[in-house]
Protein backbone atom coordinates (compact mmCIF):
# COMPACT_ATOMS: atom_id res chain seq x y z
CA UNK A 1 0.00 0.00 0.00
CA UNK A 2 1.18 3.53 -0.75
CA UNK A 3 1.66 5.60 2.37
CA UNK A 4 3.02 8.73 0.74
CA UNK A 5 2.88 9.86 -2.85
CA UNK A 6 4.80 12.91 -4.00
CA UNK A 7 3.76 14.15 -7.43
CA UNK A 8 5.42 16.94 -9.42
CA UNK A 9 6.15 18.94 -6.32
CA UNK A 10 7.48 22.42 -6.99
CA UNK A 11 8.51 24.67 -4.15
CA UNK A 12 9.69 28.24 -4.52
CA UNK A 13 10.40 30.91 -1.94
CA UNK A 14 9.93 34.10 -3.89
CA UNK A 15 12.10 33.69 -6.96
CA UNK A 16 14.25 31.00 -5.43
CA UNK A 17 13.16 27.57 -6.64
CA UNK A 18 13.89 24.80 -4.14
CA UNK A 19 12.17 21.81 -5.72
CA UNK A 20 11.47 21.57 -9.41
CA UNK A 21 9.16 18.62 -9.97
CA UNK A 22 9.79 15.86 -7.45
CA UNK A 23 8.14 12.45 -7.85
CA UNK A 24 8.34 9.40 -5.62
CA UNK A 25 6.20 7.08 -3.53
CA UNK A 26 6.75 5.54 -0.14
CA UNK A 27 5.22 2.16 0.60
CA UNK A 28 3.84 0.88 3.88
CA UNK A 29 6.43 -0.53 6.24
CA UNK A 30 9.31 1.10 4.45
CA UNK A 31 12.14 3.06 5.98
CA UNK A 32 12.67 5.79 3.44
CA UNK A 33 15.51 8.28 3.40
CA UNK A 34 15.60 11.80 2.02
CA UNK A 35 19.20 12.58 1.22
CA UNK A 36 21.05 15.42 -0.41
CA UNK A 37 23.49 18.24 0.19
CA UNK A 38 22.73 20.97 2.72
CA UNK A 39 20.18 23.46 1.50
CA UNK A 40 18.68 21.14 -1.10
CA UNK A 41 15.30 21.27 0.62
CA UNK A 42 15.08 17.91 2.39
CA UNK A 43 13.69 19.42 5.55
CA UNK A 44 11.39 21.68 3.54
CA UNK A 45 9.96 18.63 1.81
CA UNK A 46 9.48 16.95 5.18
CA UNK A 47 7.75 20.07 6.48
CA UNK A 48 5.47 20.05 3.45
CA UNK A 49 4.53 16.45 4.18
CA UNK A 50 3.50 17.26 7.74
CA UNK A 51 1.50 20.30 6.62
CA UNK A 52 3.78 22.93 8.11
CA UNK A 53 4.48 24.41 4.72
CA UNK A 54 2.64 24.47 1.40
CA UNK A 55 3.90 23.31 -1.94
CA UNK A 56 3.90 25.90 -4.70
CA UNK A 57 2.45 23.41 -7.14
CA UNK A 58 2.09 19.66 -7.40
CA UNK A 59 0.59 17.31 -4.88
CA UNK A 60 1.57 15.34 -1.77
CA UNK A 61 -0.75 12.52 -0.79
CA UNK A 62 -0.46 10.93 2.62
CA UNK A 63 -2.60 7.87 3.33
CA UNK A 64 -4.58 8.76 0.21
CA UNK A 65 -5.29 12.35 1.29
CA UNK A 66 -3.95 15.35 -0.58
CA UNK A 67 -2.44 17.46 2.18
CA UNK A 68 -2.61 20.71 0.22
CA UNK A 69 -6.37 20.49 -0.03
CA UNK A 70 -7.62 18.73 3.05
CA UNK A 71 -10.59 19.20 5.35
CA UNK A 72 -9.88 20.22 8.91
CA UNK A 73 -11.19 16.96 10.34
CA UNK A 74 -9.16 14.79 7.98
CA UNK A 75 -6.08 16.83 8.75
CA UNK A 76 -6.60 16.32 12.49
CA UNK A 77 -7.06 12.59 11.90
CA UNK A 78 -3.90 12.43 9.89
CA UNK A 79 -1.94 14.27 12.56
CA UNK A 80 -2.91 11.67 15.13
CA UNK A 81 -1.55 8.92 12.93
CA UNK A 82 1.90 10.29 12.57
CA UNK A 83 4.73 11.22 14.87
CA UNK A 84 7.27 13.90 14.06
CA UNK A 85 10.74 14.23 15.51
CA UNK A 86 12.30 17.64 14.90
CA UNK A 87 16.00 18.16 14.48
CA UNK A 88 16.48 19.63 17.93
CA UNK A 89 13.68 17.78 19.67
CA UNK A 90 11.32 20.79 19.88
CA UNK A 91 10.16 19.78 23.33
CA UNK A 92 7.79 22.13 25.13
CA UNK A 93 10.17 23.95 27.41
CA UNK A 94 7.69 24.68 30.17
CA UNK A 95 6.74 21.02 30.60
CA UNK A 96 8.75 18.15 32.05
CA UNK A 97 9.72 15.25 29.81
CA UNK A 98 6.92 13.16 31.28
CA UNK A 99 4.38 15.93 30.62
CA UNK A 100 5.71 16.36 27.10
CA UNK A 101 5.10 12.71 26.31
CA UNK A 102 1.80 12.53 28.17
CA UNK A 103 0.39 15.59 26.39
CA UNK A 104 -1.05 13.90 23.26
CA UNK A 105 -2.20 10.91 25.31
CA UNK A 106 -4.13 13.15 27.69
CA UNK A 107 -5.59 15.23 24.85
CA UNK A 108 -6.67 12.49 22.48
CA UNK A 109 -7.45 9.43 24.60
CA UNK A 110 -9.36 8.66 27.77
CA UNK A 111 -6.63 6.61 29.34
CA UNK A 112 -6.32 6.65 33.12
CA UNK A 113 -3.61 8.67 34.82
CA UNK A 114 -1.92 5.51 36.00
CA UNK A 115 -1.92 4.03 32.51
CA UNK A 116 -0.47 7.22 31.05
CA UNK A 117 2.32 7.18 33.66
CA UNK A 118 3.15 3.65 32.61
CA UNK A 119 3.10 4.47 28.92
CA UNK A 120 5.42 7.43 29.57
CA UNK A 121 7.81 5.19 31.50
CA UNK A 122 7.73 2.62 28.69
CA UNK A 123 8.41 5.17 25.95
CA UNK A 124 11.26 6.68 27.93
CA UNK A 125 12.70 3.23 28.47
CA UNK A 126 12.60 2.19 24.80
CA UNK A 127 14.37 5.34 23.64
CA UNK A 128 17.05 4.74 26.27
CA UNK A 129 16.18 7.29 28.94
CA UNK A 130 15.89 6.54 32.64
CA UNK A 131 12.63 6.69 34.52
CA UNK A 132 14.10 9.32 36.83
CA UNK A 133 14.66 11.62 33.82
CA UNK A 134 10.90 11.97 33.46
CA UNK A 135 10.67 14.87 35.92
CA UNK A 136 13.42 16.98 34.38
CA UNK A 137 12.72 19.98 32.18
CA UNK A 138 14.10 20.19 28.62
CA UNK A 139 16.53 22.94 29.70
CA UNK A 140 18.07 20.60 32.25
CA UNK A 141 19.10 17.84 29.83
CA UNK A 142 21.63 17.47 27.05
CA UNK A 143 20.94 17.82 23.33
CA UNK A 144 21.15 14.05 22.80
CA UNK A 145 18.69 13.41 25.60
CA UNK A 146 16.33 16.01 24.16
CA UNK A 147 16.39 14.15 20.89
CA UNK A 148 15.58 10.87 22.58
CA UNK A 149 12.77 12.53 24.52
CA UNK A 150 11.53 14.02 21.25
CA UNK A 151 11.38 10.54 19.76
CA UNK A 152 9.56 9.26 22.84
CA UNK A 153 6.99 12.02 22.33
CA UNK A 154 6.70 11.24 18.61
CA UNK A 155 6.04 7.60 19.52
CA UNK A 156 3.57 8.43 22.30
CA UNK A 157 0.46 7.69 20.24
CA UNK A 158 1.93 4.60 18.54
CA UNK A 159 1.83 6.27 15.14
CA UNK A 160 1.73 4.39 11.86
CA UNK A 161 3.97 6.92 10.23
CA UNK A 162 7.09 8.48 11.66
CA UNK A 163 8.88 11.55 10.30
CA UNK A 164 12.40 12.01 11.55
CA UNK A 165 14.54 15.05 10.83
CA UNK A 166 18.19 14.09 11.26
CA UNK A 167 17.48 11.69 14.11
CA UNK A 168 21.06 10.62 14.77
CA UNK A 169 22.84 13.95 14.38
CA UNK A 170 24.14 15.14 17.73
CA UNK A 171 23.92 11.69 19.29
CA UNK A 172 26.97 9.79 20.46
CA UNK A 173 27.83 6.81 18.21
CA UNK A 174 26.51 4.23 20.67
CA UNK A 175 23.16 6.00 21.05
CA UNK A 176 23.02 6.49 17.30
CA UNK A 177 23.37 2.75 16.65
CA UNK A 178 20.83 1.99 19.39
CA UNK A 179 18.53 4.46 17.69
CA UNK A 180 18.88 2.63 14.38
CA UNK A 181 18.24 -0.68 16.07
CA UNK A 182 15.15 0.73 17.78
CA UNK A 183 13.74 2.03 14.50
CA UNK A 184 14.23 -1.38 12.89
CA UNK A 185 12.67 -3.13 15.88
CA UNK A 186 9.63 -0.86 15.92
CA UNK A 187 9.17 -1.32 12.21
CA UNK A 188 9.27 -5.09 12.57
CA UNK A 189 6.79 -5.12 15.45
CA UNK A 190 4.38 -2.31 14.70
CA UNK A 191 4.75 -2.10 10.94
CA UNK A 192 5.87 1.52 11.14
CA UNK A 193 6.59 3.49 8.02
CA UNK A 194 9.50 5.84 8.57
CA UNK A 195 10.54 8.86 6.52
CA UNK A 196 13.83 10.34 7.57
CA UNK A 197 16.21 13.07 6.59
CA UNK A 198 19.71 11.98 7.47
CA UNK A 199 23.40 12.50 6.78
CA UNK A 200 24.62 9.60 8.89
CA UNK A 201 26.21 7.09 6.50
CA UNK A 202 26.08 4.20 8.99
CA UNK A 203 22.46 4.89 9.67
CA UNK A 204 21.75 5.11 5.93
CA UNK A 205 23.22 1.67 5.25
CA UNK A 206 21.86 0.03 8.41
CA UNK A 207 18.28 1.19 8.31
CA UNK A 208 17.12 2.59 4.99
CA UNK A 209 15.25 0.44 2.50
CA UNK A 210 15.05 3.05 -0.21
CA UNK A 211 16.24 6.59 -0.68
CA UNK A 212 15.45 9.68 -2.68
CA UNK A 213 18.47 11.86 -3.30
CA UNK A 214 17.62 15.47 -4.01
CA UNK A 215 20.25 17.44 -5.85
CA UNK A 216 19.96 20.48 -8.09
CA UNK A 217 16.24 20.88 -7.31
CA UNK A 218 15.46 17.44 -8.68
CA UNK A 219 15.60 13.83 -7.67
CA UNK A 220 19.07 12.66 -8.66
CA UNK A 221 18.34 9.10 -7.68
CA UNK A 222 15.48 7.10 -6.26
CA UNK A 223 15.56 3.47 -5.22
CA UNK A 224 17.53 1.00 -3.14
CA UNK A 225 21.10 1.62 -2.13
CA UNK A 226 22.41 -1.33 -4.19
CA UNK A 227 22.47 0.43 -7.57
CA UNK A 228 23.60 3.77 -6.30
CA UNK A 229 27.17 3.41 -7.59
CA UNK A 230 26.04 3.64 -11.20
CA UNK A 231 24.53 7.11 -10.81
CA UNK A 232 26.47 9.99 -12.26
CA UNK A 233 25.99 12.73 -9.74
CA UNK A 234 28.76 14.64 -8.05
CA UNK A 235 27.03 14.58 -4.70
CA UNK A 236 26.40 10.84 -4.79
CA UNK A 237 29.91 10.05 -5.95
CA UNK A 238 31.45 12.10 -3.13
CA UNK A 239 29.00 11.19 -0.41
CA UNK A 240 29.07 7.44 -0.95
CA UNK A 241 32.74 7.22 -1.95
CA UNK A 242 33.78 5.23 1.10
CA UNK A 243 31.18 2.57 0.50
CA UNK A 244 31.36 2.33 -3.26
Amino acid at each position, binding site marked *: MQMIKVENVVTAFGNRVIHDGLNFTIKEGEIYGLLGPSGCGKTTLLREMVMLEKVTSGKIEILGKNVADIRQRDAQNLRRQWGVLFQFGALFSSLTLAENIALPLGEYTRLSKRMIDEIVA*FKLSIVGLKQSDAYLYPSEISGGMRKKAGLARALAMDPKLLFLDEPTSGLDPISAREFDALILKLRAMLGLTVVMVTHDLRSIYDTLDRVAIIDNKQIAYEGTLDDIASVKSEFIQTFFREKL
Partner: protein
Amino acid sequence: MKKVFSIESIDENLLLKFEGKMSLYEVSKYEKKLATVQTTSIKNITIDLTNLDELDTTAAIFIYNIQKEFASKKVTLECHNEKLLSTLELVQENMSHYSENIKPKKLSFLQKLGKIFYDYYDGFSAFIEFFGQLFASNLRYLTSLKNIRYKEIAFEINESAIKALPIVALTSFLIGLVIAYQSAYQLKIYGANIYIVDMLGISIFRELAPVITAIVIAGRSGSAFTAQIGSMKITQELDAMKTMGFEPFAFLVLPRIIALMITMPILIFVADIMAILGGMIVANVDLSISPELFIDRLSRVVAAKHFFVGIIKGPFFAFLIATIGIYRGLIVKDDTQSIGFNTTKSVVEAIFAVIVCDAIFSIAFTNLGI
Protein backbone atom coordinates in the same frame (compact mmCIF):
# COMPACT_ATOMS: atom_id res chain seq x y z
CA MET B 1 -11.50 -3.70 11.54
CA LYS B 2 -13.53 -5.15 14.41
CA LYS B 3 -12.53 -4.59 17.98
CA VAL B 4 -13.92 -7.08 20.50
CA PHE B 5 -13.16 -7.78 24.12
CA SER B 6 -15.21 -10.54 25.72
CA ILE B 7 -15.07 -11.90 29.22
CA GLU B 8 -16.24 -15.39 30.08
CA SER B 9 -16.11 -16.69 33.58
CA ILE B 10 -16.83 -20.36 34.34
CA ASP B 11 -16.33 -21.55 37.93
CA GLU B 12 -12.76 -20.76 38.79
CA ASN B 13 -11.70 -19.96 35.25
CA LEU B 14 -11.74 -16.55 33.65
CA LEU B 15 -11.30 -16.17 29.91
CA LEU B 16 -10.32 -12.76 28.53
CA LYS B 17 -10.66 -12.80 24.79
CA PHE B 18 -9.33 -10.01 22.59
CA GLU B 19 -10.13 -9.98 18.89
CA GLY B 20 -9.35 -7.85 15.90
CA LYS B 21 -7.44 -4.70 16.63
CA MET B 22 -6.51 -3.31 20.01
CA SER B 23 -5.01 0.16 20.28
CA LEU B 24 -4.75 2.97 22.78
CA TYR B 25 -8.23 4.20 21.91
CA GLU B 26 -9.80 0.96 23.15
CA VAL B 27 -7.70 0.42 26.24
CA SER B 28 -9.62 2.74 28.59
CA LYS B 29 -12.90 1.08 27.63
CA TYR B 30 -11.46 -2.39 28.17
CA GLU B 31 -9.93 -1.29 31.46
CA LYS B 32 -13.33 -0.24 32.77
CA LYS B 33 -14.94 -3.42 31.55
CA LEU B 34 -12.34 -5.54 33.29
CA ALA B 35 -12.75 -3.60 36.54
CA THR B 36 -16.39 -4.76 36.79
CA VAL B 37 -15.44 -8.45 36.96
CA GLN B 38 -15.41 -10.22 40.32
CA THR B 39 -12.04 -11.94 40.50
CA THR B 40 -11.75 -13.06 44.14
CA SER B 41 -12.91 -16.62 43.46
CA ILE B 42 -11.00 -16.97 40.20
CA LYS B 43 -7.96 -19.19 40.13
CA ASN B 44 -7.09 -19.50 36.46
CA ILE B 45 -6.99 -16.65 34.01
CA THR B 46 -6.53 -17.19 30.30
CA ILE B 47 -5.71 -14.27 28.04
CA ASP B 48 -6.67 -15.32 24.55
CA LEU B 49 -5.00 -13.36 21.76
CA THR B 50 -5.35 -16.00 19.04
CA ASN B 51 -7.79 -13.88 17.06
CA LEU B 52 -6.04 -10.59 17.69
CA ASP B 53 -4.46 -9.09 14.58
CA GLU B 54 -3.06 -5.78 15.74
CA LEU B 55 -1.66 -4.68 19.03
CA ASP B 56 0.06 -1.41 19.78
CA THR B 57 2.41 -0.81 22.67
CA THR B 58 -0.24 0.82 24.87
CA ALA B 59 -2.43 -2.24 24.53
CA ALA B 60 0.60 -4.43 25.22
CA ILE B 61 1.21 -2.49 28.43
CA PHE B 62 -2.44 -3.14 29.32
CA ILE B 63 -1.97 -6.87 28.87
CA TYR B 64 1.29 -6.77 30.79
CA ASN B 65 -0.58 -5.04 33.64
CA ILE B 66 -3.21 -7.77 33.72
CA GLN B 67 -0.49 -10.38 33.99
CA LYS B 68 1.19 -8.44 36.77
CA GLU B 69 -1.98 -7.66 38.69
CA PHE B 70 -3.04 -11.28 38.84
CA ALA B 71 0.43 -12.65 39.42
CA SER B 72 -0.89 -14.54 42.48
CA LYS B 73 -3.25 -16.54 40.23
CA LYS B 74 -2.39 -18.75 37.32
CA VAL B 75 -2.29 -16.62 34.18
CA THR B 76 -1.84 -18.23 30.80
CA LEU B 77 -1.36 -16.35 27.58
CA GLU B 78 -2.53 -17.86 24.33
CA CYS B 79 -0.95 -16.25 21.36
CA HIS B 80 0.71 -17.70 18.28
CA ASN B 81 1.39 -14.50 16.40
CA GLU B 82 5.13 -13.78 16.36
CA LYS B 83 4.67 -10.04 15.89
CA LEU B 84 2.34 -9.69 18.87
CA LEU B 85 4.62 -11.79 21.04
CA SER B 86 7.61 -9.66 20.23
CA THR B 87 5.66 -6.49 21.10
CA LEU B 88 4.64 -8.05 24.43
CA GLU B 89 8.22 -9.05 25.02
CA LEU B 90 9.48 -5.54 24.34
CA VAL B 91 7.01 -4.19 26.87
CA GLN B 92 7.99 -6.77 29.45
CA GLU B 93 11.65 -6.00 28.93
CA ASN B 94 11.19 -2.29 29.43
CA MET B 95 8.57 -2.33 32.15
CA SER B 96 10.24 -4.82 34.48
CA HIS B 97 12.15 -2.12 36.32
CA TYR B 98 9.26 0.33 36.44
CA SER B 99 8.34 1.57 39.88
CA GLU B 100 5.52 3.91 40.78
CA ASN B 101 7.18 5.64 43.68
CA ILE B 102 9.81 7.59 41.88
CA LYS B 103 8.01 10.91 41.63
CA PRO B 104 9.85 13.74 43.35
CA LYS B 105 8.53 14.53 46.81
CA LYS B 106 6.25 17.51 47.29
CA LEU B 107 7.64 20.33 49.43
CA SER B 108 6.11 21.11 52.82
CA PHE B 109 4.59 24.52 53.54
CA LEU B 110 7.67 25.74 55.44
CA GLN B 111 10.00 24.54 52.69
CA LYS B 112 7.90 26.35 50.09
CA LEU B 113 7.88 29.54 52.17
CA GLY B 114 11.62 29.33 52.62
CA LYS B 115 12.10 28.77 48.92
CA ILE B 116 9.99 31.81 48.04
CA PHE B 117 11.94 34.07 50.39
CA TYR B 118 15.26 32.68 49.26
CA ASP B 119 14.24 33.29 45.63
CA TYR B 120 13.40 36.91 46.47
CA TYR B 121 16.71 37.32 48.23
CA ASP B 122 18.45 35.72 45.28
CA GLY B 123 16.66 38.00 42.84
CA PHE B 124 17.55 41.06 44.88
CA SER B 125 21.22 40.19 45.11
CA ALA B 126 21.27 39.43 41.38
CA PHE B 127 19.85 42.90 40.74
CA ILE B 128 22.54 44.47 42.92
CA GLU B 129 25.13 42.45 41.04
CA PHE B 130 23.70 43.70 37.75
CA PHE B 131 24.05 47.28 38.97
CA GLY B 132 27.63 46.65 40.00
CA GLN B 133 28.43 45.23 36.58
CA LEU B 134 26.68 48.13 34.90
CA PHE B 135 28.72 50.62 36.92
CA ALA B 136 31.97 48.79 36.26
CA SER B 137 31.40 48.61 32.52
CA ASN B 138 30.31 52.24 32.56
CA LEU B 139 33.68 53.15 34.01
CA ARG B 140 35.47 51.01 31.49
CA TYR B 141 33.63 52.15 28.40
CA LEU B 142 32.85 55.75 29.08
CA THR B 143 36.41 56.77 29.89
CA SER B 144 37.09 57.26 26.22
CA LEU B 145 34.75 58.65 23.61
CA LYS B 146 36.08 56.08 21.16
CA ASN B 147 34.52 53.25 23.16
CA ILE B 148 31.00 54.55 22.87
CA ARG B 149 29.05 52.65 20.28
CA TYR B 150 27.39 55.48 18.41
CA LYS B 151 25.85 53.25 15.74
CA GLU B 152 24.05 51.05 18.25
CA ILE B 153 22.90 54.10 20.19
CA ALA B 154 21.52 55.69 17.02
CA PHE B 155 19.76 52.45 16.13
CA GLU B 156 18.18 52.24 19.58
CA ILE B 157 17.14 55.88 19.47
CA ASN B 158 15.25 55.13 16.29
CA GLU B 159 13.78 51.84 17.57
CA SER B 160 12.71 52.79 21.06
CA ALA B 161 12.06 56.50 20.78
CA ILE B 162 11.48 57.85 17.28
CA LYS B 163 9.08 55.01 16.49
CA ALA B 164 7.34 55.66 19.82
CA LEU B 165 6.64 59.31 18.95
CA PRO B 166 3.19 58.83 17.38
CA ILE B 167 1.82 56.81 20.30
CA VAL B 168 3.31 59.17 22.92
CA ALA B 169 1.89 62.16 21.04
CA LEU B 170 -1.55 60.63 20.68
CA THR B 171 -1.75 59.45 24.30
CA SER B 172 -0.72 62.80 25.76
CA PHE B 173 -3.00 64.71 23.39
CA LEU B 174 -5.95 62.66 24.62
CA ILE B 175 -4.90 63.03 28.26
CA GLY B 176 -4.74 66.83 27.83
CA LEU B 177 -8.14 66.76 26.17
CA VAL B 178 -9.75 64.68 28.91
CA ILE B 179 -8.21 66.61 31.83
CA ALA B 180 -9.28 69.92 30.30
CA TYR B 181 -12.77 68.64 29.56
CA GLN B 182 -13.30 67.38 33.11
CA SER B 183 -11.99 70.51 34.78
CA ALA B 184 -13.77 72.87 32.37
CA TYR B 185 -17.07 71.63 33.73
CA GLN B 186 -16.01 72.39 37.34
CA LEU B 187 -14.44 75.75 36.53
CA LYS B 188 -17.51 76.95 34.63
CA ILE B 189 -19.58 76.62 37.81
CA TYR B 190 -17.38 79.22 39.52
CA GLY B 191 -16.90 81.30 36.40
CA ALA B 192 -13.17 80.75 36.76
CA ASN B 193 -12.75 79.78 33.10
CA ILE B 194 -9.37 81.42 32.57
CA TYR B 195 -7.77 79.46 35.42
CA ILE B 196 -7.85 76.35 33.28
CA VAL B 197 -4.61 77.61 31.76
CA ASP B 198 -2.81 77.71 35.14
CA MET B 199 -4.16 74.34 36.08
CA LEU B 200 -3.32 72.57 32.83
CA GLY B 201 0.07 74.22 32.55
CA ILE B 202 1.31 73.17 35.97
CA SER B 203 -0.21 69.66 36.06
CA ILE B 204 0.87 68.75 32.53
CA PHE B 205 4.39 70.17 32.64
CA ARG B 206 5.26 68.93 36.11
CA GLU B 207 3.53 65.57 36.37
CA LEU B 208 1.27 64.32 33.62
CA ALA B 209 3.50 64.54 30.56
CA PRO B 210 6.58 62.91 32.18
CA VAL B 211 4.63 60.13 33.87
CA ILE B 212 2.39 59.34 30.89
CA THR B 213 5.42 59.26 28.59
CA ALA B 214 7.28 57.00 31.00
CA ILE B 215 4.34 54.60 31.23
CA VAL B 216 3.96 54.41 27.45
CA ILE B 217 7.70 53.86 27.02
CA ALA B 218 7.79 51.23 29.76
CA GLY B 219 4.98 49.35 28.05
CA ARG B 220 6.41 49.74 24.60
CA SER B 221 10.21 49.84 24.78
CA GLY B 222 10.91 48.34 28.21
CA SER B 223 8.97 45.21 27.32
CA ALA B 224 10.74 45.05 23.96
CA PHE B 225 14.13 45.15 25.72
CA THR B 226 13.16 42.20 27.91
CA ALA B 227 11.77 40.15 25.05
CA GLN B 228 14.71 40.85 22.70
CA ILE B 229 17.44 40.13 25.22
CA GLY B 230 15.52 37.21 26.69
CA SER B 231 15.17 35.47 23.34
CA MET B 232 18.80 36.20 22.55
CA LYS B 233 19.66 34.40 25.75
CA ILE B 234 17.51 31.38 24.88
CA THR B 235 19.02 31.06 21.42
CA GLN B 236 22.50 31.31 22.98
CA GLU B 237 23.26 34.50 21.05
CA LEU B 238 24.50 36.11 24.25
CA ASP B 239 26.89 33.21 24.83
CA ALA B 240 28.12 33.51 21.25
CA MET B 241 28.79 37.22 21.76
CA LYS B 242 30.74 36.55 24.94
CA THR B 243 32.96 33.91 23.32
CA MET B 244 33.71 36.29 20.45
CA GLY B 245 34.80 38.89 22.96
CA PHE B 246 31.83 41.21 22.50
CA GLU B 247 30.84 42.31 25.96
CA PRO B 248 27.00 42.21 26.07
CA PHE B 249 27.06 45.21 28.40
CA ALA B 250 28.82 47.32 25.80
CA PHE B 251 26.81 46.05 22.84
CA LEU B 252 23.34 45.56 24.25
CA VAL B 253 22.97 47.20 27.62
CA LEU B 254 24.67 50.58 27.53
CA PRO B 255 23.43 51.64 24.07
CA ARG B 256 19.85 50.99 25.14
CA ILE B 257 20.18 52.86 28.41
CA ILE B 258 21.98 55.80 26.84
CA ALA B 259 19.56 55.96 23.91
CA LEU B 260 16.55 56.04 26.18
CA MET B 261 18.13 58.62 28.52
CA ILE B 262 18.82 60.91 25.59
CA THR B 263 15.40 60.64 24.03
CA MET B 264 13.14 60.61 27.06
CA PRO B 265 13.36 64.41 27.61
CA ILE B 266 12.56 64.92 23.95
CA LEU B 267 9.57 62.63 24.16
CA ILE B 268 8.38 64.48 27.28
CA PHE B 269 8.73 67.77 25.38
CA VAL B 270 6.55 66.40 22.59
CA ALA B 271 4.07 65.12 25.18
CA ASP B 272 3.97 68.62 26.75
CA ILE B 273 3.13 70.23 23.43
CA MET B 274 0.47 67.67 22.53
CA ALA B 275 -1.23 67.71 25.94
CA ILE B 276 -1.33 71.51 25.98
CA LEU B 277 -2.73 71.42 22.45
CA GLY B 278 -5.46 69.04 23.60
CA GLY B 279 -6.27 71.35 26.53
CA MET B 280 -6.26 74.38 24.28
CA ILE B 281 -8.83 72.86 21.94
CA VAL B 282 -11.20 72.08 24.81
CA ALA B 283 -10.65 75.54 26.30
CA ASN B 284 -11.54 77.10 22.96
CA VAL B 285 -14.61 74.99 22.28
CA ASP B 286 -15.95 74.62 25.81
CA LEU B 287 -14.83 77.78 27.63
CA SER B 288 -14.39 80.07 24.62
CA ILE B 289 -10.81 80.94 25.47
CA SER B 290 -9.06 81.73 22.22
CA PRO B 291 -5.68 80.11 21.51
CA GLU B 292 -4.03 83.55 21.58
CA LEU B 293 -5.40 84.25 25.04
CA PHE B 294 -4.47 80.75 26.19
CA ILE B 295 -0.84 81.09 25.09
CA ASP B 296 -0.56 84.60 26.41
CA ARG B 297 -1.75 83.53 29.86
CA LEU B 298 0.35 80.39 29.77
CA SER B 299 3.52 82.39 29.31
CA ARG B 300 2.59 84.79 32.09
CA VAL B 301 1.39 82.47 34.87
CA VAL B 302 3.29 79.22 34.33
CA ALA B 303 6.93 79.74 35.21
CA ALA B 304 9.58 78.03 33.12
CA LYS B 305 10.76 76.02 36.16
CA HIS B 306 7.65 73.83 35.95
CA PHE B 307 8.61 72.83 32.44
CA PHE B 308 12.19 72.09 33.45
CA VAL B 309 11.08 70.03 36.47
CA GLY B 310 9.22 67.75 34.07
CA ILE B 311 12.09 67.49 31.61
CA ILE B 312 14.67 66.75 34.32
CA LYS B 313 12.70 63.69 35.36
CA GLY B 314 13.09 62.21 31.88
CA PRO B 315 16.60 60.72 32.10
CA PHE B 316 15.88 59.27 35.55
CA PHE B 317 12.71 57.57 34.37
CA ALA B 318 14.52 56.38 31.25
CA PHE B 319 17.31 54.88 33.32
CA LEU B 320 14.84 52.98 35.49
CA ILE B 321 12.80 51.67 32.56
CA ALA B 322 15.85 50.60 30.55
CA THR B 323 17.73 48.94 33.41
CA ILE B 324 14.71 47.03 34.64
CA GLY B 325 13.80 45.92 31.13
CA ILE B 326 17.33 44.77 30.37
CA TYR B 327 17.88 43.14 33.74
CA ARG B 328 14.66 41.17 33.32
CA GLY B 329 15.85 40.10 29.87
CA LEU B 330 19.17 38.90 31.18
CA ILE B 331 17.65 36.70 33.90
CA VAL B 332 15.32 34.86 31.49
CA LYS B 333 15.74 31.12 32.00
CA ASP B 334 15.93 28.52 29.27
CA ASP B 335 12.25 28.16 28.66
CA THR B 336 9.76 30.12 26.62
CA GLN B 337 7.36 30.84 29.49
CA SER B 338 10.14 32.63 31.26
CA ILE B 339 10.16 35.30 28.54
CA GLY B 340 6.49 36.06 29.03
CA PHE B 341 6.83 36.07 32.80
CA ASN B 342 9.81 38.41 32.79
CA THR B 343 8.29 40.75 30.21
CA THR B 344 5.19 41.20 32.35
CA LYS B 345 7.36 41.70 35.41
CA SER B 346 9.56 44.23 33.67
CA VAL B 347 6.64 46.43 32.65
CA VAL B 348 4.96 46.25 36.06
CA GLU B 349 8.19 46.91 37.93
CA ALA B 350 9.25 49.71 35.59
CA ILE B 351 5.93 51.54 36.00
CA PHE B 352 6.08 51.06 39.75
CA ALA B 353 9.66 52.33 39.89
CA VAL B 354 8.74 55.36 37.79
CA ILE B 355 5.90 56.27 40.13
CA VAL B 356 8.04 55.84 43.24
CA CYS B 357 10.77 57.95 41.63
CA ASP B 358 8.19 60.58 40.73
CA ALA B 359 6.97 60.70 44.34
CA ILE B 360 10.53 61.20 45.58
CA PHE B 361 11.04 64.03 43.09
CA SER B 362 7.77 65.59 44.16
CA ILE B 363 8.79 65.67 47.82
CA ALA B 364 12.31 66.83 47.05
CA PHE B 365 11.20 69.68 44.76
CA THR B 366 8.52 70.84 47.18
CA ASN B 367 11.01 70.96 50.05
CA LEU B 368 13.50 72.80 47.86
CA GLY B 369 10.77 75.27 47.01
CA ILE B 370 10.94 74.64 43.28
